[in-house]
């Protein structure tokens, strides 16, 4: 059963090579099971073979968030397991904290969704050089900014006020991460104009746009056809 949940049970001490091998093993199983799970609840969505659709309604939104949190958690697990060359201890502390938050978010959605949860996704970080500070922080900025725009963009679709509150509780922590990563890349770069518009509002994105970015780093492609 490990192949279904590879990304959610990654051991932090796993060396990079075995992590990638481990992740790779999961692809086939995840694809099959994910499609199966996306078929039984959605009436108006035709699944694409090999693509995991998050489903519809509030469950779909929680699964959309779960997918993004899986991606973020997997990224920071790798970052902390194989820190970039010459990492200062304070930066390792920050990134370890962020890892722990993202794992909290991932595990929260997994627990909250129960049997409605999409399966574990397999990441594809082959484009990221984990030995390079520039590459790692650049990717971290992409993930954090993406997370903020994703939660803000989908929030109005949420029907249950309790879920909306929790989404709000998470998105501000993602924004805190985003600002820190921005500052680590360039001091004072925490509300950069690529993320905050002329009215002082953070930009937000539709799920379809968010997933274009997220799927770049996923072997298991994800769709949110009900929310496009």
């Amino acid at each position, binding site marked *: 059963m490990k192949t279904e949940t590879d990304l959610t049970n990654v051991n932090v001490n796993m060396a990079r090579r075995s992590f990638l091998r481990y992740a790779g093993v999961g692809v086939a199983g995840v694809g099959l099971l994910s499609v199966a799970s996306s078929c039984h609840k959605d009436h108006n969505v035709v699944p694409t073979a090999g693509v995991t659709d998050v489903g519809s309604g509030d469950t779909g939104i929680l699964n959309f968030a779960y997918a993004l949190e899986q991606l973020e958690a997997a990224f920071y697990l790798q970052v902390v397991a194989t820190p970039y060359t010459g990492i200062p201890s*304070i930066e390792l502390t920050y990134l370890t904290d962020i890892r722990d*938050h993202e794992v*909290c978010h991932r595990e*929260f959605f997994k*627990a909250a969704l129960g049997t409605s949860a999409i399966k574990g996704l397999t990441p594809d970080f082959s484009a990221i050089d984990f030995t390079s500070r520039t590459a790692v922080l650049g990717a971290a900025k992409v993930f954090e900014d993406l997370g903020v725009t994703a939660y803000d963009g989908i929030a109005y679709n949420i029907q249950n006020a309790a879920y909306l*509150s929790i989404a709000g509780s998470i998105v501000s*922590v993602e924004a805190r991460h*985003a600002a820190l990563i921005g*500052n680590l890349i360039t001091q004072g770069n925490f509300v950069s104009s690529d993320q905050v518009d002329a009215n*002082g509002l953070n930009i937000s994105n539709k799920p379809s746009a968010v997933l274009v970015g997220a799927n770049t780093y996923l072997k298991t492609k994800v769709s949110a056809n009900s929310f496009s």
Partner: protein
Amino acid sequence: MNLFSIVEEIEKIDPEFNDRISPRRDAIKNITSFGSKVAIAAVPFALGNLFKKAYGQSASASVISVLNFALTLEILEATFYNDGMAASGLVTDTSYISQIQSDENKHVTFLTSAINAAGGTPVTASDFVYLDYTGGAGSQAGPFTGVFTNYQTFLAVAETFEDTGVRAYKGQAPNLLGNQTYLTAALDIHAVEARHASAIRYLRMTKYGATVLPWITSAASGSVDTSGAASNDTGVAAVNANYGGATPENTSVQGGVNILNLPSATSSTTTVAAATAAFDEPLTMSEVLAILVPAFTKPKS
């Protein structure tokens, strides 16, 4: 909020829209003649009209009340940073503080125009008897005396304002449930406040030795920390209430799920630090007002 996509949407309904907001219109021509600063300030005004056009009706009283509550906070924040930046020799990290000042003033402009467009009456700075950033209820001699002469005090107050702003917007989100325009805008401001909070905390930690992280990390979790004593990580006991409340910052049960019992990267359970920092909690409107009134401000009755 993507202004350009809104303009596109409006143009589908109203082909003359561009004419309406373009300099060919006399009113706009007059505005732009004052210079580029005013023209920029007119953008949110046009956006406010877009709201009205896009939805063709005024917002409900409850939505306007949420927007005015948000505007009250933004006026407090904007004035705080305006006063701080104007205080000679106070602000060292001007690149940080000036960006935050700019954002907060934009939020005031944005919300004011949004409320006007929605048919409401926006609050203004003149609606308050006083603004007292020392927390002294108008005496200007409260627990944060020296807020505009001592930079460390200024940063501590800034940190609390930002953290509280995040919690205040979060608390109003359920009142805007399903409202694409206003909920999305409120959450977009909320995210910027969180970015500010992170940056102020980062400054305090890296440059001035405060033991804070960019996220609120509580020392203990368990019974409801109404007073905020266990939730407040700023080292400033006077602001405990800003971190407490009915859903304090040290909450570790989210949506019925006990985060402490979930597996973490290194263990089958999760630490209090991670569980509390991974989620920011809301404050209700009455909780926020109890913190602000009368210590920091008092509305004219």
